[in-house]
């Protein structure tokens, strides 16, 4: 579990790449020791810019941030000495995988014997044995990505920034890396993680910040986001006996009045009269009402199922809401009302 120590805090952090054109704006978010914070968003949402700002690769044009107590404007080397950064772009040296690892250890001033031992550990952990003697250009896309994550783990750090580290990886390699990162987080490593693979974020992240056109539109646990933003979900109810025609018609009217959309069976002939299915935005809130309605009419319910809320449906819901609200890049000087509380979000965001 994340501790209460705050290791990173941003205050209205922003970066404009041209006058009035913001890649990120009004970002206020925090990270605790041992916490994994996910940054989600469409392409161009500002995830990579945020990572670059927090790792001092870009200077903020407004607002600020402290990372491990250092101001990102002035922390420089002292700050970066505590960070690990896996960039979105491939960064490679033209020597073998094994040599790349030890050379990177050398750059980080890791004693030679320690670097050799860690390189072996990383080669095994990231399944790079077959690639050990190969040069980067001879590696597959997945191997290069695994290598890049492995290389960053050659040195010690307090915060690890991972910008889409699992792009191009197969499911097994991805799961292995995520599990390893989760273990490291349990050991106290704080992680900032960007991805487009939403179930990864669901699996790994303690909290998730959703960015859209440079704005933070939500910050919560995965569960919190799912329950608040999942949109319409499907509910299927099977009664103990066939519903009489007028009763069924009444149920349809009542459900429709509560915002549900009845799902008509594709094949009218096979319509089961003991079953009804519908979609509703807050489907879970309709279930208690439905139970009471059936109970009042002495109708037994055999089975009631609700489609599982996924982070993907929540994400799509959030982006849809933001686009409907016309939250455009660079437009606003107004502060977004977007910092949701959930879990730890309240105190920090």
């Amino acid at each position, binding site marked *: 579990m994340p501790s209460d120590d705050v290791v990173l805090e941003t205050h209205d952090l922003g970066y404009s790449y041209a006058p009035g054109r913001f890649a990120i704006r009004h970002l206020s978010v925090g990270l605790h020791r041992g916490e994994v914070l996910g940054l989600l968003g469409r392409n161009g949402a500002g995830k990579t810019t945020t990572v*670059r700002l927090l*790792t*001092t*690769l*870009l200077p903020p044009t407004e607002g600020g941030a402290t990372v491990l107590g250092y101001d990102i404007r002035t922390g*420089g*080397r002292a700050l*970066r*000495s505590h*960070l690990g*950064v896996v*960039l979105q*772009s*491939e*960064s*490679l*040296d*033209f*020597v073998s995988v094994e*040599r*790349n690892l030890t*050379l990177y250890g*050398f*750059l*980080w*001033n890791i004693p030679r014997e320690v670097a050799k031992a860690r390189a072996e550990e990383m080669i095994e952990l990231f399944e790079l044995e077959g690639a050990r003697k190969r040069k980067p250009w001879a590696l597959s896309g997945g191997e290069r990505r695994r290598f890049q994550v492995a290389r960053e783990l050659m040195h010690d750090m307090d915060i690890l920034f991972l910008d889409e580290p699992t792009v191009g990886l197969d499911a097994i390699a991805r799961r292995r890396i995520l599990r390893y990162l989760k273990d490291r987080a349990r050991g106290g490593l704080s992680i900032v993680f960007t991805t487009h693979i939403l179930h990864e974020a669901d699996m790994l992240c303690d909290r998730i910040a959703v960015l859209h056109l440079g704005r933070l539109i939500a910050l919560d646990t995965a569960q919190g986001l799912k329950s608040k933003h999942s949109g319409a979900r499907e509910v299927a109810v099977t009664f103990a006996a066939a519903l009489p025609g007028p009763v069924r018609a009444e149920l349809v009217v009542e459900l429709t009045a509560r915002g549900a959309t009845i799902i008509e069976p594709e094949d009218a002939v096979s319509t089961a009269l003991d079953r009804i299915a519908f979609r509703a935005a807050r489907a879970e809130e309709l279930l208690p009402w439905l139970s009471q309605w059936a109970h009042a009419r002495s109708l037994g319910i055999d089975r009631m199922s609700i489609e599982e809320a996924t982070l993907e449906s929540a994400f799509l819901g959030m982006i849809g809401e933001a686009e409907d609200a016309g939250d455009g890049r660079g437009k606003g000087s107004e502060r977004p009302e977007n910092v949701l509380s959930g879990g730890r979000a309240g105190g920090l965001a």
Partner: protein
Amino acid sequence: MSLPPILRLIVRNFASNLDPLTIIIRFGQPAVTIIVLGTMFSSIISSSVTGGASYTAFLVPGMVAFQMITGGVVSGNLFWLDRRWSMVEQVFSGPFLRAEYLAGLVLTSLLFSLVGVGIMMLVGLPFIGIPPLSALGVLAVLVTVALGSVFFAGLLIAIGLQLRSANAYFSIQSFLQLFVIFLSTVYYPVTSKTPKVLATIFYLNPLTYAADTIRDAFSGTLGPSDLVSLGILALLATVTFGAAAWAFRRMDLGPIQ
């Protein structure tokens, strides 16, 4: 043992980017030039044109001076490849300053040039014997090559910072290399018969000042004009290094091709 960041970067520059084939070509090319051109043209080119020395004896100091380009090209290419493969960004995200990375590149260039000087002198030894180099002469050679390699490293890094295409960078680098070497006194001297325009262009070229100074050091005839040459080289090196440093501070770390 903990090495300072600049030294770690220099070691990394050598270890990661300089494969044996590159090293052989970089040093082999001027070495072969001394042997082949020196042997071929010594009998054709009159020693009166080359100030009384054989053409090989004239060529060796020229090839020594040429090492400043070799070193400059090495660090220019290193930087380009680091940018292309995002290692600049990766290094900057670690415990290094931009100034250290730049200094590491320039010092790599310098070391490469100085190693090249040694190799060229060794290659020239069987042809011209041990040159009458005084301590001051050795110092003049080393300072000249050092300033020249800083000049070319700074120039190529500054050019590399302005370009986003590998084709453009390597085309300019090749053209520049060819232009600089053939419009200098590396292969042939400026004489009374040299067309005025050409002679003027020769003396706009820093390699000419380097080649002349090294030649004077080799022949033991260093004089006040060499001090002026060194001053010009120092000024030019300061300008290009300053330009590279200025552009470095504003460098866009975005992807290039």
